[in-house]
């Protein structure tokens, strides 16, 4: 057969294909745009609050962290989860596996697309949030050192990227958008609170959401969500998130491997 072909296939081909698929549906753009809007809205309102409320002085980096955890991360969760579960909403998965029959390769390819995209997105969002908050609060509240800003930006980038991978793992394992979204959100927010209220507060910093926030806070500073100081350095927070993401991906890949498409 004559074919005008490039050499690429295998994993690089699968990544190129998933990259095209990621950017060619509206859901991706809607989710990422919604995250930006939420971050900018939160930063603006919190910045304004800093001008009139002296009781809780905050730095721009803490405001960006709040916007990133309370709001924008849900856009990341939605984008990453839908990237996988939309394969099952229609019959897309059957095409995907026809193109890339080695199933672990599909799991890796989607992760490889999300990782750099969400790293960049986290940097962009945290920097935009900090810039807007500091402009709006106009000297009120607390100052932001370079180190604090850097930790927030790098922590949010790493957290979003690993959170995205966690979501794809849940997506592969559960195959439904509703199931995966609910599971991830429960794991991030209510579950650590429940575990703490059951008398095991020392486990809280090892849940992915809390660990992610700890990664955005300089060592020794209190986590603004739990109001406690993390028992480890910021990079350890990301390592904890990475462990969760890997576990979810392994579980998801095992389910995909085992079942008929």
């Amino acid at each position, binding site marked *: *057969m004559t074919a005008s072909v490039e050499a690429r*296939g295998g994993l690089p081909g699968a990544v190129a*294909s998933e990259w095209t698929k990621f950017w*060619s*549906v509206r859901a991706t753009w809607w989710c990422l745009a919604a995250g930006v809007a939420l971050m900018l809205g939160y930063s603006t309102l919190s910045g304004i609050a800093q001008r009139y409320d002296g009781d809780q002085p905050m730095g721009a980096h803490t405001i960006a962290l709040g916007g990133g955890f309370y709001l924008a991360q849900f856009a990341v969760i939605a984008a990453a989860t839908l990237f996988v579960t939309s394969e099952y909403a*229609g*019959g897309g998965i059957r*095409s995907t596996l*026809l193109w890339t029959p080695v199933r672990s390769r599909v799991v890796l390819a989607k992760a490889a697309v999300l990782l750099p995209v969400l790293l960049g997105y986290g940097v962009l969002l945290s920097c935009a949030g900090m810039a807007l908050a500091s402009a709006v609060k106009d000297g009120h509240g607390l100052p932001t050192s370079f180190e604090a800003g850097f930790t927030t930006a790098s922590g949010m980038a790493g957290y979003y990227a690993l959170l995205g991978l966690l979501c794809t793992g849940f997506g592969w394992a559960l195959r439904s958008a509703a199931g995966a979204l609910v599971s991830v959100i429960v794991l991030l927010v209510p579950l650590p609170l429940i575990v703490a209220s059951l008398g095991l507060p020392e486990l809280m910093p090892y849940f992915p959401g809390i660990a992610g926030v700890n990664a955005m806070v300089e060592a020794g500073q209190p986590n603004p969500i739990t109001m406690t100081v993390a028992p480890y350095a910021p990079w350890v927070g990301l390592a904890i998130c990475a462990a969760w993401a890997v576990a979810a991906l392994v579980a998801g890949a095992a389910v995909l491997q085992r079942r008929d498409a």
Partner: protein
Amino acid sequence: MITLRGLTKRYGEKTVVDALTCDVEPGRVTGFLGPNGAGKSTTMRMTVGLDRPQEGEVLVGGRRYAELRHPLREVGALLDAKALHPGRSAGKHLLAMARSNGIAPGRVEEVLATVGLSDVAGKRAGQFSLGMGQRLGIAGALLGDPGVLLFDEPVNGLDPDGVRWVRQLMRSLADEGRTVFVSSHLMSEMQLTAGHLVVIGKGKLLADAPVAEFIAGNSRTKVSVIVPADGERDALGLRLRAEGGLTHPGEPGELVVDGLDVTRVGDLAYELGVRVHGLAERTASLEQAYMELTASSVEYGVSA
């Protein structure tokens, strides 16, 4: 060339594909026939690795599908036209497909033109009609210029022009030396398109033969004789059975005879002095041959 060796698929207790062994040769259209639920789609899905067989294997060009480095350049498959994200445009769908197997992006426009979808490349695939979706699926099957093509019920939803186009396409693909394996439950369609038939029922291989041989081997020529008077017809029926024939009632006034040729039936009627209004040989179509063959293996049949 597709090679099935003892291919078996079970869902719980139920055996859907039962020790299927046959070869699908290049250079001709092979029709894959069977009633609904016979296991055709499952067989095709196992061929491309979507379902896993419990026993046996199916090889494409001597290798399993998942072992192919660039599967789309060796096997093109239209299994399910709805197997895509409804929000993605047809062009982007094919572009993602091309990239996955290192196929030049320029092929996308070529195959869209081949199936007549160039004008709607930017339209979301979810808005396509059944026929357009089927054309997009065929475009995908052709994208990697593969030597083996699988089509599961390709004419579903196509208008008469589309049906004729698919027939010509399949024949021309086979004429180019490719392996073309087409499933259908429409016998008449296969009679027009296929040169060779693989027939299954309840997952078992019932026939693997050229179309002409299949028809000859699976049907007996029947004789229809029309006798208007009831008494005379009964007398003739009695005599025909005595001569070793089998008779069935047909249309009102008609007697359908199995196992005796038309001259013998005519001679017997003449001997009895029966008034005959019609006497004709009935050659079975592929449809009838198929119905007879699969009569005992219809999965979701209606009781007569």
